[in-house]
């Protein structure tokens, strides 16, 4: 499959001779904001990562927050306390429960370098999910828009009842594929209660051969693919969608307007003063496969 070349030619034909050139530009240093990325899962202990925002073009990592106090609330009652492990990463002790509501409360002590105060998230419900039925690989020959190689598929059934949202993630040899275009979320309105089992609906395609011309069939043998389907809230679905939309802008004619990416965490009770990042609750279901001949 040579989709990349095909699409390049197609786009070039349509846009004649558009071009992108790297340029030097100086961006302003905006207001420093706290970044909180935390979660409660139904199969791992609660965790959070804290850092500060920096200039968008900075070559450094966002500075970590090492001195925060973090509480997690279940149905508005203090439920767990998270401790700092390393580099702004905090871990709790408890595992979440489907159907419960969770929120996070982060306190930063006063200092001359960074803002201080208390940041609180809105409640996130830990939504239901079904286990993944199976994962398998098959060999497919060369065809139009299909490169020869091993393709990985997953069978999974979506719980009946509209209103569920999901996030999909995949790992290759235990490395999360985590570029903005790997962000995948969906609502269930188009497949509510249906099964992706090749009988009702097509199985979910997880992975396939590399697009690179240099990669061979043998290169795929022994690769471990992991796939995860997590239940998420509609609000988290919209948040991830917005991150993808805003990070994949190509400056083109049909780009959506630049928009602030606001999660569900606010400083004190002030809805105007928000932290970056998101606190979510989720029921992830994960499967693995190693490609064999």
């Amino acid at each position, binding site marked *: 499959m040579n989709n990349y070349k095909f699409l390049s030619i197609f786009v070039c034909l349509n846009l004649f001779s558009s071009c992108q050139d790297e340029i030097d530009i100086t961006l302003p240093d*905006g207001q420093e904001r706290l970044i909180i990325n935390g979660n409660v899962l139904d199969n791992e202990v609660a965790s959070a990562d804290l850092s500060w925002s920096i200039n968008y073009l900075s070559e450094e990592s966002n500075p970590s927050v090492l001195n925060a106090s973090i509480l997690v609330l279940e149905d508005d009652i203090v439920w767990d306390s998270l401790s700092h492990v390393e580099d702004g990463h905090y871990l709790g002790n408890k595992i979440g429960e489907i159907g419960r509501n969770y929120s996070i409360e982060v306190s930063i002590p006063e200092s001359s370098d960074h803002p201080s105060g208390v940041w609180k998230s809105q409640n996130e419900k830990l939504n239901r999910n079904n286990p993944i039925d199976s994962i398998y690989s098959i060999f497919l020959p060369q065809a139009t828009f299909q490169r020869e190689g091993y393709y990985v598929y997953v069978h999974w059934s979506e719980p009946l009842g509209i209103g569920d949202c999901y996030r999909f993630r995949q790992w290759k040899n235990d490395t999360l594929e985590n570029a903005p275009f790997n962000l995948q979320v969906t609502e269930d309105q188009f497949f509510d209660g249906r099964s992706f089992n090749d009988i009702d609906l097509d199985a979910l395609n997880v992975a396939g051969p590399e697009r690179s011309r240099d990669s061979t069939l043998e290169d795929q043998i022994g690769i471990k693919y992991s796939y995860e389907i997590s239940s998420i809230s509609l609000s988290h679905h919209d948040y991830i969608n917005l991150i993808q939309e805003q990070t994949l802008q190509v400056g083109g004619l049909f780009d959506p307007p630049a928009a602030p990416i606001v999660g569900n965490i606010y400083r004190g009770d002030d809805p105007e003063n928000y932290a970056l990042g998101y606190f979510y609750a989720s029921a992830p279901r994960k499967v693995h496969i190693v490609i064999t001949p």
Partner: protein
Amino acid sequence: MKLIKPIFIIVTIVSSFSLLSQDIQISGTVEEESSGEAIPNISIVWEGSSGKKFSSTNSYGFYSISVPEGPGRLVFSSFGFKTQTKQFRNLKKNIVLNVSLNELSTELNEVSVTSEKLNDNITTTEMSVSKLSAKEIKKVPQLLGETDVIRTLTLLPGVSTVGEGASGFNVRGGNADQNLIILDEAPVYNSSHLFGFFSIFNADAVKDVKLFKGGMPANYGGRLSSVLDIRQKEGNSKKFSANGGIGLLSSRLTLEGPIVKDKVNFMLAGRRSYFDLFFPLFDVPELNESVAYFYDFNAKLNAKISKKDKIYLSAYFGRDQFSAAELFKFGWGNWTSTLRWNRVISPKWFFNASAVYSDYKYQLGADGTTPFEWDSRIRNLVQNAKWTYYWNNAHTIEFGIQNTYYEFEPAKISGPIDVELQNEYGTEPALYFSDDWRVTDDLTITYGMRYSSFYNIGSRDIQTYQDGGVYNESTIKDTITFEPGQIIRSFNNLDGLEPRLALNYQISSNSSLKLSYNRNRQYIHLISNNTTATPVNVWRPVGQHIEPATVNQIALGIAYNLKETGIRFSTEGFLKTFNNLIDYKDGANLIFEEYIETQLLSGEGRAYGIEVLLEKKTGGLTGWVGYTLARTERKVTGPSRELRVNNGEWYPANYDKLHDLSIVATYALSKAWDFGGNFVYQSGRPLTYPDSRGEFEGIYYPVYTNRNGGRTPSTNRLDLSFTFTPGVKKKNKKWQSSLSFGAYNVYARKNPYSIFFRGEVPDFTDIKAYQLSVIGTAVPYLNYNFSF
């Protein structure tokens, strides 16, 4: 039926005035000698012992002028036509006088130019109006040599686009959806081929183009910022003729001729692009199974069914189609058709009625293992009736009624699960009246009033929300079901009054001062938060939770003509204030959204500026220099952060450009060679730059707080063209041809369309800034045109 009674009363009252008049009425039509096409805007001057009287032809070539008994002469003149004079030794009764005018070549025009011909811009109350003939449009160098009506309009002051390739155009700070584009009276909802690179109007089928940027006549309404009125050719009623062209992008052919000489004639035009035919050259199998083309057809049939009646049937059909084997398919297109009836009721009365159907739809989908098809469309049925009463030479009165019926089908998806959004229905009736009043020889006022209303009608389920004007999931109160035909909400109050005023004070024979005011109301919106509209954006009407948008515009201008030189100068200043403009919540999801009000915000806008236009219409060197200095801003305030944009502060609109300069010139190098050139300079357009960097689970993302707070650098571009027309000396030669070649963006300037940021492979954390140039190189072209 309720409307018939008041109209009858108006007709009766106005008719009774004519009894008071003692003048003789000369009326008739003015046509082009060679083709029989009606010619609008012909200046008609009566020169008699008691002085001069003035009139002009309307859009259908009809005129009527009141003159005193006795001797005199009637002079028919217009730019580009040989003047014709009719002598009357002793006029005693009303007469019908149909006139045919001969077209002049550019060179002849130079020597025969008279002040009357050039001064139509001085004597008319029309201001903020740009007129282009197909001939003028064809002279302008174009991208790939494709003669493009809209691209040419953007070279005029006050008209701009977001950038190269952007769909639609912006007039004096208005969004692209604020332009009423009508083709033979039929509304067109997407004027672009190839995502915005070309317009759907085939210049060979176009007779003339008129753009109202302000001071709109009362018969136009429904959009805030402009009216682009495009008339298709009627077809040659004298002889069969054809013309066409072969270009790099597309080829076209137009046929016209009489079916019954001087009575029934037709025009047929077609155009198709063919860049997909070159796909096999790339040796990519996937391309061989792909499709990428556009085409359009124009047709018109005219019939003079009696001395007083004429019927026209015109149609347009066009499509863009893209598909990549089973991966995806995507297509869109317009279909319009117009049935029009003109009747000369009496020497003083002219009547025009039309019935119009317009249909814009798009489809996208796939044919793979999970096939699906997504359809969306907007349909219109429009009825118009307009009466023109030439009361006397001081008053020309127009009045009429219109109704536009809308059917919106926002999304219908067939696939694994069939789903659809609810259709919406609406009807927009309007009444209008205007009087073109020549107060004195120096002062002319055109005043009028339009009254429009809108009824959003069922069937439809409507959500109601808690008080406070906040529409989201948490404020939903109830769902109400409306039956078919049941009125959901009506907009029929005094806010629907749209006064129109245009004033012309002639300072001297070659200069005038103009003033205009118009209020317009818009009841449908294009739901799009992209930088530029896409073919898949849907139109939605005002309704339970969406208010009509309004604009008030005032413009003041001066027109000055340099005597006997063919040079015209005009400048206009304008101020527009907008209310209830649609804007979008940050991160709004507009795709497949049933309750679109949950994604929308409402704001205000303002636009102000000065436009300068210097034109040379005659001689070997013709063209214009246009300059606009303008600002366009938006403001969305609300009780909370989610309901505000830019913290409630004014911010520049996407297409706000402070300076916009265009120089357009064509020069006859010799009898056989013509040279054309455009130079365009524009200020950069607004952009939003990130203030800082956030992170979500290892993905860096931009933090934006200042909407459109930055700008791209300025842009400039030069386009050149050469046209060789062999055998121009042989006047009777049937087959005539020309060869055009040139280049767009001659010095290959990489004009920035935007600046954006992207993380580098593999981990996307090394973020760099990039400049996108849509057309970053010189684009040459070669065209062969013919006619016989």
